[in-house]
């Protein structure tokens, strides 16, 4: 996914990451945010469940 039409570094004059010029950066950013939230939700649920086992 080289972001320039010619596969040569001599034409690169700016952004040079995988997916530049496509929707990939936006998709990966959205998925990263989603992953963080999902991990927090799962973490909260499992920690609460485990803590309840210690209730007297």
């Amino acid at each position, binding site marked *: *996914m*080289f972001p320039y039409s010619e*596969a*040569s*570094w*001599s034409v*690169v004059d700016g952004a*040079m*990451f*995988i*997916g*530049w010029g496509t929707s*990939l*950066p936006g998709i*990966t*950013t959205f*998925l*990263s945010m989603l*992953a*963080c939230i999902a*991990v927090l939700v*799962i*973490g909260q649920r499992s920690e609460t469940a485990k803590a309840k086992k210690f209730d007297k």
Partner: protein
Amino acid sequence: MEDQIAELVTKVAELEAASGGAKVTNTVFAETYYYLTIPLMIIIHAGFLAYEMGASRLKNVLSSGVKNILAFAFMIPTFYFFGWWVYFGFPTGVPGEAGPMGISGIEYANSIALGWGESAQYMGPNIADNISGVFFGAFALFACTTASIMSGAVIERIQTIGFIILAVVLGSFAWVVAAAWGWHADGWLVTQWGVHDFGAAGLVHAVAGFFALGVLINLGPRIGKFNADGTSNHIPGHNMPLTVVGLMLIIVGFWGFLMACVVPPGEAWSWFPDKFATIYGTPITLGSLSFNILMGVAGGIIGSWLFTRDPFWMMSGALAGIISTASGLDIYYPAHAFLIALSAGLILKPCADFLDKRGIDDAVGAVTVHGTIGLYGVIMLGVWGAGFPALAIENAPTVSLMGQIVGAIVFFLLGFVPGYVVSLILKMCGMLRIREGAEIAGMDAVKVPAAGYPEWGGDAPITPAE
């Protein structure tokens, strides 16, 4: 008219002086840049030392430390004696012909990397050479890192001399061949297959990880690790906090490691007059590293926390996060790097359990964190980075999934085969595993005339006050 000419001459002289000053500044900067990577990389070894000693039981804590320190010490001179020469001698393969860039082949290696004859001028203090020493230093520390990776896997039952022989084979030969083939701009994996492994996920981490696997097969598990029915027991180290802090120190040192994978601009040996380059000569910015290393560390920690909740695996996840993205730290988008690192963190523990169920006692998960995740990182770049030019030349080979798979296979073999063969020879010579009685008693009692915690244990000395 004469006044104008005189003014012009003065201005030219001033410009020449300024240009000379800038040149000196750049040379000093470039030399200092590499010089600073060396102490940063030594932090990796402070980390490995703490991590290994913490992961050892009380009875083995110092012997694990001694082994680690000795590996570091033997790596430096052996890399000086022949490792540096191997790196420049064999990028194009055997028999060591010169490559197209003109910086490889046995003849070239003989001229710059031998400690005698004319070549010796580049292997010692030289006022006209501001690069050889610091570049050697950075590479020698890469070598030390490979040995330390293997070192953790084999704690609590390996003989010291056998271990040092293995460390030298790995650090001053096996990974160096991988670097020559897959990192050097004349390396055949690069020129023929477009392999891209900027941060050495394959050629350092995977080689060292699978070298360790080859050794572990011959070394066998620690006494008490596996039950008769094949199930395994967890053998906890004596100090988890020390292990976790050690892992964090390794992360700190990785910044130096990855900094040393970058070539500063503006020197005769630089790739560009005005921008940083990867070791392949492709452009990079330190900003790329800043974005992607941080996102990689974070992704790895979060992924491994989800399933393990264990600080050991979380910090191992941080390492896995960097390693899984290391091949493409120069070209990943940060959120993309985060997701790849997250996935590495998620698969980390299941991969370690897979080995455990097959009777491999990897005391610190080195085969998984460095070996498996290293290859995962190499192949991930093939999935996402296909089409990127592997070199900054016209008609350069491009990164491809097939090329990265070929690279991964070569890196696996360069690690596993020498690790297995040399450890098998050592085993046959009785130099691999310590005697059973000594293992049960504790290796500190056999190897070290000092106690890690002298006031603990049944034979603790009575203090004068008592």
